[in-house]
């Protein structure tokens, strides 16, 4: 896992990219993040780095958080998140070090993690994309219902009820979602902005985490290799 930066989703707009192509982008106000804790294998059992983002009034924070962040020599932060690094790599990070969007310069693709918008209790059509039932031909009050969910012995090959994870109505959204390998359109280091192509999970002003893309598909691998990276 690479370095993870924290930010806030600003919103979406469109920008003209090379060749006059109008590209939909999400603007992310990324960082500056402060390293608030460095974890090592000897002391903590694994190597990792904790970063904090977004100043919060000390009055709105708690004494433990204020003390924790004071060790890194910063004001209390609203969000703290941790990412793993290879053992030994943690020495590259120092307490109080400030990570900005500049760290992502040169990256063509990033992974973006956020908390998706909550949709409440949703039916199977919205939640799983089921087709529902007929609109007419005698269908009454069953237009959006899932239909049969199978008999007691199906779905598993043997008895004992339905398979776990059977897709049914229930709570949708408000969960951690990662979209991988989104194109980096632009990096504005002066204003700590990152522009990525397309949508990003969550509402505007929501906290998002960005890391260099972990795994690329073949066509994207070729693009990165072609640019001599």
């Amino acid at each position, binding site marked *: 896992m690479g370095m993870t930066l924290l930010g*806030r989703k*600003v*919103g979406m*707009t*469109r*920008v*003209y990219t090379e*060749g*006059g192509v*109008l590209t939909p982008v999400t*603007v992310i*106000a990324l960082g500056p993040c402060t390293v608030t804790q460095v974890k090592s294998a000897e002391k903590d059992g694994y190597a990792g780095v904790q970063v904090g983002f*977004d100043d919060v009034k000390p009055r709105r924070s708690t004494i433990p958080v204020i003390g924790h962040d004071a060790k890194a020599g910063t004001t209390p932060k609203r969000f703290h998140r941790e990412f793993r690094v290879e053992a030994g790599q943690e020495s590259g990070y120092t307490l109080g070090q400030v990570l900005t969007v500049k760290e992502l310069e040169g990256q063509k693709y990033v992974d973006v993690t956020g908390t998706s918008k909550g949709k409440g209790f949703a039916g199977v059509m919205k939640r799983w994309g089921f087709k529902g039932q007929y609109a007419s031909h005698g269908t009454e009050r069953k237009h959006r219902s899932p239909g049969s969910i199978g008999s007691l012995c199906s779905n598993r090959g043997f008895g004992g009820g339905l398979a776990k994870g059977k897709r049914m109505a229930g709570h949708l959204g408000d969960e951690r979602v990662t979209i991988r390998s989104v194109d980096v359109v632009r990096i504005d280091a002066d*204003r700590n*902005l990152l*522009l990525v192509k397309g949508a990003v999970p969550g509402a*505007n*002003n929501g906290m998002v985490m960005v890391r260099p893309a972990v795994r690329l598909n073949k066509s994207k691998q070729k693009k990165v290799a072609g640019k001599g990276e």
Partner: protein
Amino acid sequence: MPRAIPQQQLLDSINAGQLKTDLPVLDVGDTVNVHFRIVEGDKERVQVFQGTLISRSGRGLNEMMVVRRIVDEVGVERIFPVHSPMVARYEVIRRADARRAKLYYLRDRAGKSRRLRDRRRGMKHVAAPSA
């Protein structure tokens, strides 16, 4: 939750750099020349598309305009993003009197009835950008 970042200002500032500031006044009904850049390989040339502006829609960066012309008695419409960097410039050839915002009725017209009346009202708002 308090707004930690001035969201709309940030988005506006990103858009602002892309908006064209030298746009002439382009009203629906005008006959315009659109100088469109065409990139072929590494060569670039400019193609001029002349026609009647029949629609403008959207706002700001998202604004589109529809230009209609007649080629060999066949109507051709092209939709241009007004602020596209691929449009080198706009030229207004002729101003005409349009009494509605969208001139889609021109699609059903042929012959003389396809013409638009020249603008007779004062050209005041043509000289200076309309407020």
